């Protein structure tokens, strides 16, 4: 298998893995917010918008997977934008979690919960996993531009 084909397969697998992860998390998060699921698996907060954001991100990854037969750059572009949005969303959620803890600490709100559990929300875990993926894709594309 040549390096181009290897790259294409890696991009495809990453798209499938992250697309599915975001789709499942997004749907569960959405459904739990409208009380269809009482106790979703894992640490998924009920959140209509958050769930919708995760579904949008999953659609971007899946659109990349569906463009498999087109040139590799096209699939990579979906993965790149999906990764960027995932990181944006993950960082947003992490900062909001930290600010909730600060509010709890200064006594303006109560019941922020355990910070470790809150920071292990799927959106934050997936964001952490995607940071090296995004970085390597950026480096690869920048090197390609310079070459």
């Amino acid at each position, binding site marked *: 298998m040549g390096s181009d084909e290897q790259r294409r397969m890696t991009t495809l697998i990453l798209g499938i893995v992250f697309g599915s992860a975001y789709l499942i998390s997004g749907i569960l998060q959405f459904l739990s917010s409208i009380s269809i699921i009482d106790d979703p698996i894992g640490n998924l907060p009920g959140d*209509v*918008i958050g769930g919708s*954001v995760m579904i*949008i*991100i999953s*659609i*971007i990854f899946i*659109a990349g997977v569906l463009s498999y037969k087109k040139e590799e*750059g*096209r699939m*990579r*572009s*979906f993965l*790149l*934008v999906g990764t*960027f*949005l995932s990181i*944006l*969303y993950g960082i*947003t959620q992490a*900062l*909001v979690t930290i*600010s*909730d803890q*600060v*509010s709890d600490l*200064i006594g*303006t709100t109560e019941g922020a919960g355990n910070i470790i559990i809150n920071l292990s929300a799927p959106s934050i875990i997936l964001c952490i996993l995607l940071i090296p993926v995004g970085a390597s894709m*950026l480096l690869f*594309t*920048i090197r*390609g*531009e*310079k*070459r």
Partner: protein
Amino acid sequence: MDPKPIKVALAGNPNVGKTTLFNELTGENLHVGNWPGVTVEKVIGKKVHKGHNIEIVDLPGTYSLTAYSKDELITRNYIVEEEPDLVLNIIDPTNLGRNLYLTYQLMELQCQMLLAVNMWDLTKDPENAVDLKALSRELDIEAIPTISTTGKGVRELLDAIVRVAGSNPTCKEQIRFNDDIEKEIHKITRALNDWDPGRDHRWMAIKALEGDKQVWDLLKERDLDDRLRELMGEIDPMGMEISITDGRYRQIDNVLAKVKKKVKKKEKISDLIDSVVTNRHLGIPIFLVIIWSIFELTFEFATPFSNLIDMGFGELSTFALEQIQPAWLSSLIGEGIIGGVGAVIIFLPNILVLFFLISLLESSGYMARAAFVMDRVMSKIGLSGKSFIPMVIGFGCNVPAIMATRSIDDRKDRLVTILVNPFVSCGARLPVYILLIGIFFKGSGSMVIFFLYLLGIVVAILSAKLFRVTILKGDPAPFIMELPRYRGPDLRLSIRSTWEKGYQYLKKAGTVILLGSVIMWFLASYSFSLENVDYGSEASMAAAMGKFIVPILAPLGFDWRITVALIFGFVAKEIVVSAMGVLYNVGAEGSTLTERLSSEGSGMTSLNSLSLMVFVLLYVPCLATIGVIKQETGSWGWAIFAIIYTTSIAYLLALIIYQGGLLLGFG
């Protein structure tokens, strides 16, 4: 020191970094952004360099000296009529051909010139590499490489400005057009020489042949138009304009062949990202995710810091009320000043986060993509994508947003964009939302803010459609916008811009809002016969005023205190919060405004607070916005129309929300 300043005009295509360079040259802190059309008016800055006074004028970007929009006209008029000592032409090496088109037109004007080849760091890419010496030699103009974002080359540029402006003007190499065009130029130049001997009229002759509107207006003013038309005979103006443009580009191609190497184009990150973010189906959802993240951070992340400041002001107010004598002074300081100004300052963290994130968005280059994506929606309702950028700028403040409409060429497009812009929620309305959402919509704060902003945009879009089929009939002009290169976050620039916005917010709190709070305190403390009454009692002027008007606003769920706050909000929207801070000292318990509004005595519920937020979002624009609508439309009629229209829409929607909510049992 030389007393006469050297007048330098910064000219160049849109989005080449003129304002960033201007800030570096002068130490000013003007607003910058990575999309075409940020600067829409001329700004003058000063610099003393090596004993020379230099007056630098930042001008809106333009692709040529033939002006189509209001901002382009400002640039052209300054360069042509003010005759600066030096034109500093800033060019982008990644788009050299298009940038040189303006350079050649400036050369035709025979003005003293200097070139700043900006974004020089990008020339490391072989695709953008430029042979600077060859460029300088071919154009016969000194060229300095600069990187405006880091300040590289600024000192060399200042040295060159002093050197070139002090030298004798040199006659620049002119483009020789084909014989037919040259014959026509010669004919017109001779006629113009008869009228005004001793001047070089070649530029005017070329512009006349191009059918330039401003030149023909000038010729008409001087009764020369008929004579020149006679001389031009059967010339097809459109064909002539194309031939002249073609002549310039042929010359530019000759220069490019000498200064640029031919390299094979490669796949760029920008292209990869654009293929997704401008996607027909994914573009709008991606835009919504980005905007939602901004509001989530603005509301949720900044809240603990706002709460801390709120607690501090609560303590300060209690201290002032308990410790200061006499009673009227403690009331003025504790209830009037600290209650009013403090109620606004507590939202500084939210404002800083919002402006920081908007500034990152602006510098990233994404704004132009958002406009492109929205063009499909905008064109369906009768506006062009160009109208979308003023809407996003409106998230910060409606005043610069309305001024940004100068880049819209079509008059009706521009007018519609101006009239609907006040519906876009500015930063000044944010404190009202955060205050009420923090009390009545805990847990879904960012979602409510997101929908309020979205509601503003939807109302703006629907109003535009209404105007397009009624008072401003017509089709939108086609949307053409250059998509700038993406740039990574420039923290230095973003922090500087955020600091400037935060400073302006605090300045407003210390001036207009302080004054408003004192007036509000006075109205709540005295009767019409100027007797001191119980604070906010029935006998106070504020209560009398509020109760006089409240029958109109009562169907929206508002009491007299909200009514008074809304009236004063006409001056500046932040005053709504400061007035509530002053007026809700009455009859409610708690040391902070949040505590007082949550108490039973406040009369506030989640339903009337939602109605209030929608009303504040849509009702009459602030005084400064009304002023700029009058200035930009040139008519008080449109300004008054904006007041009546926005307030009617606000009233209607707030009424539907409140009465509908009551009917559904949400009261």
